[in-house]
């Protein structure tokens, strides 16, 4: 039974009317569909290639990406990227990451991994990072932030990379603060704690204390949240404990460091630069790296703060920053991400540990360690008993007076050292120091204990007739000859910058030099105040070298003292 003409017309009319309805609906859907969260414009760039004809997807992938399988393509590329990474084909990883972030600009893990890859994994033969990639890495994170402004993850990544890799604590603080303010669901431990640490490293101590306070309040709030899972509660409780400790310690340290950093120490920074072979520099020198050791720090409690530094002396651990770069080079973060870098730039950065600083005071103990000096144990370090190799014993005129024969020559500190050497305090004891009364009693006991004295003599404990200090030393041979792509040396002039930044010193050394170098004497050679870093007092020596200095043949001392 066929339709009547009238019925057909009715049906056709209905279809046409509905088609207008479809058009109207589409006009309503378009603005919603075209929001970046659903249909990012960059997906089309991935398909058709970016500006300058950069990476574009193969045709089959393009078709897939444009027909609703965008995330599938992104996922497949990511799996492929992972296999490239694990096979060491790092160069292939970057274009893949570029395309994946275009296809799925909300996949924050890809930005994070890409930035980590750029900033950490491109290295020279000696595993020094190619720091020319720091700018592109940060630009990638900035793009990630722009595409995910309401998600703390990207701010956290930027903050961490600025903190750990670039060591720009103002930049880190700014990023982490934005993460907190833009995403209420931010991870308190990852973002809130790091923000407090960044503020401390930036020299903004009061703000750091306030941030720890905010972190503690936030942890408590999340623990009390009835919707919190047991796992989340557990993590918050654990983080609350560490936040509380940090908050208390920071306040105590702030209070005691004002006195502990005085009088300031003249750093006496020296350096010697030698070209060993073409593009191989030996960088060495000395400086007075002081701090506390072992248990010679009295923290106390927030209600009853301790004295802080009980005894300080030469110690190991702080690092000298060494940077070799084209003269006048200023690191920059590009406006838009590109993994192309200026290959003509030469940029090398290294950190060299300081060690072997030693001290012997008149009437104090030292250990004659034979051919090689060894580190003394923790208790002895806590009372500044250092080991000196024979060569140093001779050079510094430390003599050969054995403890058993030099008891009468011991200074009050020497007696304390002898008591600790003879009767080490139990490991559980909070501080290694015996009280004055205990020291007197135990010293009297030691004076009569010939067996113990003989044992200490056998271990080469000696009494120093003079006060001498051997400064800490740093030394590293830096080979830039094997990586011509990283170190092209195409320019005429270079800057070799040696610096000591107290903000990145370990706590036990910072206890003596302060958060911002308050314990560094202004009379120290190469002392500078960096006003761009919240009045950071530091050591900074800039040496200008010519290309010939670095690439020339034969061994040559370029700088001495």
């Amino acid at each position, binding site marked *: *039974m*066929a*339709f009547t003409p009238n019925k*057909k017309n009715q*049906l*056709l009319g*209905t*279809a046409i009317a*509905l*088609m207008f*309805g*479809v*058009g109207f*609906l*589409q*006009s*309503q*859907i*378009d603005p*919603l*569909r*075209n*929001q970046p*969260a*659903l*249909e*990012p414009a960059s997906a*089309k760039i991935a398909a058709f290639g970016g500006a300058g004809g950069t990476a574009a997807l193969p045709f089959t992938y393009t*078709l897939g990406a*444009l*027909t*609703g*399988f*965008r*995330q*599938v393509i*992104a*996922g497949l590329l*990511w*799996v492929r990227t*992972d296999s490239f990474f*694990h096979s060491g084909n790092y160069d292939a990883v970057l274009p893949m990451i570029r395309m994946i972030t275009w296809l*799925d600009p*909300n*996949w*924050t*893990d890809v930005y994070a991994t890409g930035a980590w890859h750029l900033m950490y994994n491109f290295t020279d033969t000696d595993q020094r990072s190619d720091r020319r990639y720091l700018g592109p890495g940060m630009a990638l994170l900035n793009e990630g932030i722009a595409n*995910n402004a*309401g*998600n703390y*993850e990207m701010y956290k990544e930027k903050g961490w990379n600025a903190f750990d890799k670039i060591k720009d604590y103002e930049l880190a603080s700014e990023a982490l603060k934005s993460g907190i303010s833009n*995403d209420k669901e931010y991870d308190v431990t990852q973002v809130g704690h790091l923000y407090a640490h960044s503020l401390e490293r930036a020299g903004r101590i009061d703000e750091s204390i306030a941030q720890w306070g905010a972190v503690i309040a936030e942890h408590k709030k999340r623990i009390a949240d009835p919707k919190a*899972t047991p*796992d989340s509660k557990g993590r918050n409780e654990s983080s609350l404990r560490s936040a509380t400790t940090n908050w208390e310690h920071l306040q105590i340290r702030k209070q005691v460091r004002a006195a502990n950093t005085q009088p300031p120490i003249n750093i006496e920074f020296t350096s010697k630069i030698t070209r060993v072979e073409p593009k191989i520099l030996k960088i060495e020198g000395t400086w007075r790296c002081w701090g506390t050791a072992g248990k010679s720090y009295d923290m106390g409690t927030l209600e009853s703060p301790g004295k802080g530094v009980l005894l300080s002396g030469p110690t190991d651990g702080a690092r000298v920053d060494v940077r070799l770069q084209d003269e006048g080079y200023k690191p920059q973060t590009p406006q838009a991400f590109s993994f192309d870098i200026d290959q003509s730039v030469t940029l090398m950065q290294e950190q060299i540990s300081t060690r072997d600083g030693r001290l012997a005071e008149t009437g104090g103990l030292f250990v004659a360690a034979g051919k090689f000096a060894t580190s003394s144990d923790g208790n002895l370090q806590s009372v500044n008993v250092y080991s000196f190799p024979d060569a140093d014993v001779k050079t510094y005129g430390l003599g050969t007076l054995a403890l058993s024969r030099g008891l009468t020559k011991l200074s009050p500190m020497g007696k304390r050292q002898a008591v600790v050497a003879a009767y080490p305090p139990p490991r559980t004891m909070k501080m290694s120091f015996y009280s004055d009364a205990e020291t007197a009693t135990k010293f009297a006991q030691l004076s009569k204990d010939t067996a113990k004295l003989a044992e200490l003599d056998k271990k080469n404990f000696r009494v120093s007739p003079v006060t001498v200090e051997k400064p800490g030393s740093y030394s590293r041979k830096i080979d830039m000859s094997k990586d011509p792509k990283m170190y092209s040396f195409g320019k005429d002039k270079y800057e070799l910058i040696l610096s000591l930044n107290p903000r990145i010193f370990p706590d036990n050394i910072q206890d003596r030099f302060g958060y911002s170098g308050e314990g560094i004497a202004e009379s120290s050679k190469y002392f500078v105040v960096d006003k761009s870093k919240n009045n950071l007092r530091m050591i900074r020596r800039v040496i200008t070298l010519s290309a010939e200095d670095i690439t020339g043949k034969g061994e040559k001392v370029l700088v001495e003292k």
Partner: protein
Amino acid sequence: MNTVLVIAGNTISEAMRRKILLAFLMVGLAVIVFMFAFSTFSARQELTLIKGMGLGIISLAGLFISVILSIYLIPTELERRTIYTILSKPVTRSQFLLGKYLGAIGTVAINILAMGLLFVAAVAVKQVMAGQPVDAGELLKGVLMTLMQMILLCSLSVFLSVFTPPLINFFGTLSLFIIGSMSAVTYDLAKSQTSNVAKAFFTGIHYIVPNFGNFTFTNPLLNPEVQVVNPTLFLVQNCIYAVVYSAVLLILAVLVFDRKEV
């Protein structure tokens, strides 16, 4: 209405006999494989990959089930001449067509929902194993969008099947699916043209060709942090779009089928 439903029921039974559920089995296996395939990634990345791949496989399987089922819907009846037996009974051509169509989308719906539920359950298990909050239910929105997309695709294929042979219908449906899925590009092209003719052409394509790209809702499901403006309105509008456009195509199919010599 009863007649339509009887035809639809028969169509579903017949489709099931064609072992079309094998697609469901295939997807089930794929999901299980995916659950272990990405274990070298972090738990979160693994879940992102599983979700993305899972939704993609459901879409792809749904696409092939819909097209292959729909293109043979009418031609098979003509070829086997079973249509004469049916139409000799008190069944109108429009009832026959509607019944076949409802049977096709019923089959597609059963498959997609089965695949979707298996997938959602697998994701939920994975989330529990990873100690992450279970938000797998959200993924059903993605499954729903795939279903609506396939309902529209079935309508298109059924419409074409009343006047084209299966092979041409297959390529025609797939071509229109690709063009309709790329409507974000045609939309941009329409806006960027300086020539009025070209602008009208691309605008026409954007509004006339079924807009399959509308139904892509994967991003917020993979990245729950993204802020989507009015997601509910978007989903509702798309459901209405699929239903209304399908109605248009079915009316046109009925009109053409009514004049067709069988």
